[in-house]
């Protein structure tokens, strides 16, 4: 029985993509936040300087967007890191069982 289980885990190692995926998600959230803070705020200032009020976002709305993005970034990064940790443990376990 034990041997059967061993051969099963040997046949199906824990996929690496499941370890990397959450890490990519967390990095994406940080990158999105940084992008919003730097480029979208900059673009809004350009729109104001060109007096293009069709694309310009008023400061209270932009501030609201940045605040919401910050909180979402926190949540996604923490959840992503938790998922990464769980996947990493499973990956190491499958490697140990395989060797």
């Amino acid at each position, binding site marked *: 029985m034990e041997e059967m289980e061993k051969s099963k885990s040997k046949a199906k190692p824990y996929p690496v*993509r499941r370890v990397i995926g959450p890490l990519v998600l967390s990095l994406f959230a940080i990158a999105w936040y940084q*992008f919003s803070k730097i480029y979208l705020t900059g*673009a809004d200032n350009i729109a104001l300087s060109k007096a293009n009020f069709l694309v310009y976002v008023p400061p209270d709305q*932009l501030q609201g*967007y940045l605040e919401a993005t910050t*909180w*979402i970034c926190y949540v996604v990064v923490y959840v992503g890191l938790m998922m990464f940790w769980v996947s990493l443990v499973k990956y190491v376990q499958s490697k140990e069982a395989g060797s």
Partner: protein
Amino acid sequence: MILQPVFSESWALIFGLFGLSGFILGWVAQRGNYCFVNAMTSIFTTRSFERFGALLILFGLTALGTGLLVAFGLIPPVDQYFNNYFAGWYILVGSFIFGFGAALAGGCNLSMLYRASSGYVQNWIELFGMMIGTYIFAVAIWPFQSYTMENGILSTSAGGYVEYLPYVLFHSVSNMAVYITTMIVALPLLFLGIYLQMRTRSKWGKSVSMKGPGLSAVGMKALPGLPGPSAPSIPSGLRLKQEAKDMLLLKKPYGTNLSTVILALDMIFVFIVGAGYTFNYLVITSSDGGRFFEYILMPLGINLFTNTPWFNSSLPIVDPSTLMVVMLCIGAFSASFLSGDFKIRIPKDRKRLAIGFVGGMLVGIGVRMALGCNVGLMWTNFGQLGYDGYIFLGGMLAGVYLAVKVQEKL
């Protein structure tokens, strides 16, 4: 008219709740494999109305929910008609191009996003094609289209309450006018959707019983939307509990109708959250094609909104739909990752990638011509009690039909 917000929320909360709605949209669409184009394609290929019926139920439930909220005075009617678009030739032509392109590329705007987040490379290519298509539309088509819109050439030029169905039918936006219109719009859609589903299921039942008892179990299992063969010894209550548990643990995908109900509730949630702030600017997913193309170019110092038609007049730099689309992708990724579906999938036939790109370009051109996609214009417009959704539905069905015929020849 002085517009009063219904609830006093901060902009951060509104953006956050739109993000949450996007997350739910992505999660449920991924778990339910919800695709508007597949629903329409299956009519012409397998003669199945199961998923198309679900779409009609989705539109009906959305119209019923938003309509009753207005009819009972909980949300003012202005929230339903404030951002109503002008109807015109471009919705019909755009939806036709969109339907054709999306069926070629293999996914509507919603399924493109959740499949791309689940690792489908073809949908990444489709998304990129959509960005290029949006740019082509902006420089080549938009100047002409906006000219026809401004001058009322095969186009209405009023928008707002003038194109609000209660006003069209009763020349009134009173609660009673909204109530009657809601019933006129929602009930036929609901009944037709349920009828089409029942007809398809009875057809399946007949074809399965004709195969004989030995094959019926296999046939039943292969058909989507139907409950699989059940052992007579398991009580139905217990089986239902087990199914619910499997769905919660992501072992089983959501059924079509369960997804439909959750998605309709999601739209109604956005309608309530945005009341007095974003008005009937509800679930929007097509702005990604244009806006995200603009975003990609920003770090290179190129700001399309400074000198490019359409980009300089049609989209604010950010709005709640920005976070909605980002969170839709995160929701779909989370659902696919946690259920074990996530995998980078490159089609073996590389021709599919080229078709995906061309289809994506047509999707980009189509959605911008029609002023929205199957979600932002068609589904949302049913919630707005407008009539653009009907025009879009007709055009999209025709486009999908043509794409099915073309693919048969290829």
